């Protein structure tokens, strides 16, 4: 397993090129090209703003304003998380040709999927930043130092899950269907369209078992909620857990590796 991990590091050049290819290919032939990466979150944000200021002005706690921006802080990382996982389930099967015919470290593929998602996530950040400034949301500079760590923890967690899911889907084709349903539940089980404080204490207990709760709330605390970032113990615990998930995911992927070429 250590050897395989070293392999991944050796192939980092390939990973970088594949991520670049992924992004290039996605917008090839579209008029706006890379601009879509900005337009998508922008439109999303505008729609939410419209819904929460015009359609349902009273549907959210008055303390959180503008609520659309608050939601956006959670939706942006969630989109990265969920789309990466969903895409990673099929990435080995669609690249089956490569796995069957070329000696190729297959773990590169789910990793590339997650990283390409990360790039999209990062392209959404300027939009978020622009609106934070526009609404004069008071952002503490020292809080922002936590931001890269939150992203890193999410990255490790997502890669771990993506490795696990991609290898499992090769053997069990219904993983993708199970996952898409699970992700819907998971979305509502994560305080994205509501604030964790609104939740009754007993339910809150359950929600804290969800690692994405801590990540999303950390994003909200760092970017949106005023005051110093106080959740770092929980965040670090999730970080440790993420490393665990990554190791387990990689281990299982490594164990299933030899069967991939035959089953894919």
């Amino acid at each position, binding site marked *: 397993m250590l050897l395989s991990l070293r392999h991944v590091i050796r*192939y980092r*050049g*390939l990973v970088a*090129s*594949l991520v*670049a*290819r992924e992004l*290039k*290919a996605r917008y*090839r*032939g579209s008029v706006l090209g890379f601009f879509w990466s900005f337009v998508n979150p922008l439109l999303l944000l505008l729609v939410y703003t419209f819904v929460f200021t015009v359609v349902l002005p009273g549907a959210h706690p008055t303390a959180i304003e503008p609520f659309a921006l608050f939601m956006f802080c959670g939706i942006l990382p969630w989109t990265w998380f969920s789309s990466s996982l969903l895409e990673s389930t099929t990435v080995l099967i669609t*690249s089956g*040709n*490569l*796995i*069957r*015919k*070329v*000696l*190729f470290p297959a773990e590169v593929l789910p990793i590339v999927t997650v990283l390409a998602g990360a790039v999209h996530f990062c392209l959404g950040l300027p939009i978020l930043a622009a609106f934070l400034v526009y609404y004069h949301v008071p952002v503490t500079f020292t809080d922002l130092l936590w931001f890269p760590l939150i992203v890193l923890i999410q990255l490790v967690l997502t890669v771990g899950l993506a490795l696990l899911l991609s290898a*499992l889907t090769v*053997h*069990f*084709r*219904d*993983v993708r269907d*199970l996952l898409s349903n699970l992700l819907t539940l998971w979305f509502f089980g994560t305080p994205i369209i509501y604030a964790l404080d609104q939740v009754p204490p007993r339910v809150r207990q359950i929600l804290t078992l969800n690692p994405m709760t801590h990540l999303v709330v950390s994003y909200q605390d760092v970017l949106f909620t005023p005051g110093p970032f106080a959740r770092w113990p929980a965040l670090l615990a999730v970080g440790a857990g993420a490393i665990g998930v990554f190791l387990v995911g990689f281990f299982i992927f490594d164990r299933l590796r*030899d069967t991939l*070429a*035959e*089953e894919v």
Partner: protein
Amino acid sequence: MNAIEVRDVRKTYRRYGRRRQFATLKSALLSGGALRDLRPDETFDALKGVSFDVTAGKTFGIIGRNGSGKSSMLKLVAGIGRPTSGSLKVQGRVSALIELGAGFHPEISGRDNVFINGMMLGLTRREMSARFDQIVAFAELEDFIDAPVKTYSSGMYMRLGFAVAIHVDPDVLLVDEVLAVGDEAFTHKCLDKFAELRRRGRTVLLVTHSLDLVTRFCDEALWLDAGIVRMQGDPRRVIDAYLLDVAGAEGRALAAAAAKANAIQTASTATPVNEPPDMSKAVEGRWGSREVEITSVELLDRNREPARVFQSGDQVEVRLSVRARHPVSDLVFGVGIFNADGVCCYGTNTDIEGAASAATAGDGEVVFVMDRLDLVEGTYKVDVAAHRRSGAPYDYHRLQYTLRVTSSCKDTGIFRPPHRWVSSGGITIAPRPRS
């Protein structure tokens, strides 16, 4: 030093049952224990204990019928998949020409694909930059390298894939049936490249159906048959043994087909008597009044053994068992040989040759002896007939018997006259030394 060492390698594939094409997680959980479900229920042994060594710097050919395990072997050597048991060692960097351009992304330019493909094969970006121009020149795609790969023709695609794989500069190159990728000129270029790799002491493992290529390029050959090594050694010796075996199998297949056709024929002996034979149509069949009946037809080799496959130039006999219902004096026997295109290669009968034949009631035998069957390689069909001098058939067997002519010489046409080459003056013609 051995570049490749294969020791008692077995490879077992899982065979999917009809019931369960793909396992589902749900079914795995419901039937209790996902792990048990991962265990194959039906297996298929592609390789059953294969051992061989390839000396570094040699070109090594693997031949065998379809499904003999050649490609499985190559994939294991390439490191795609691991043997179920046994050990396998490969020294140095391996590049596999198994599927050309696998992993090309259609939307991306040829340039980007070349880089990514090269990096997939294990090169760094810098190494790729150094080779890039060479690769493009080799693929002859200078004008198209910045166009997306989806706009390429299949030939361009293959050429680019080949160019990348061969410029990885591997210590061990694995080639699986990929030389048919371009026009004649490109094929020559590929072969030149192989020759160059050989000169530079690289090891090449070649899996191919082109026996010609094996004789020309390989230092050693291995014949795989149904997952076991049938023979290993000098390419010509191995190929001859292989050809002999293939000829035997073909003979059995032809005989089986003929037996089946005969069975159908006997089952429907109620063929209308005196059915007008339309000779312009070369359809298989049997017709005639059956006053004189050809009850069986056998093709015999020079040992008078029934055979279906002959070497060009062999002696061939066509033996007819004949039964006459009553004495017949107006009787002609004829034989015709047709090639796969339906062209009559030769046809004759006793009347044409100025012989008179007659039969008394009862059984008899007629043998048409060809001392030399000087036909080029191919599959031929034989007509036999007994008829009146007017042409009215007693028993006409149209294209009912198949024979196969094999030859080590790949000359073309239909007929091979016995010949030799003679030269004088400054011109010499001598057999090529066996390389």
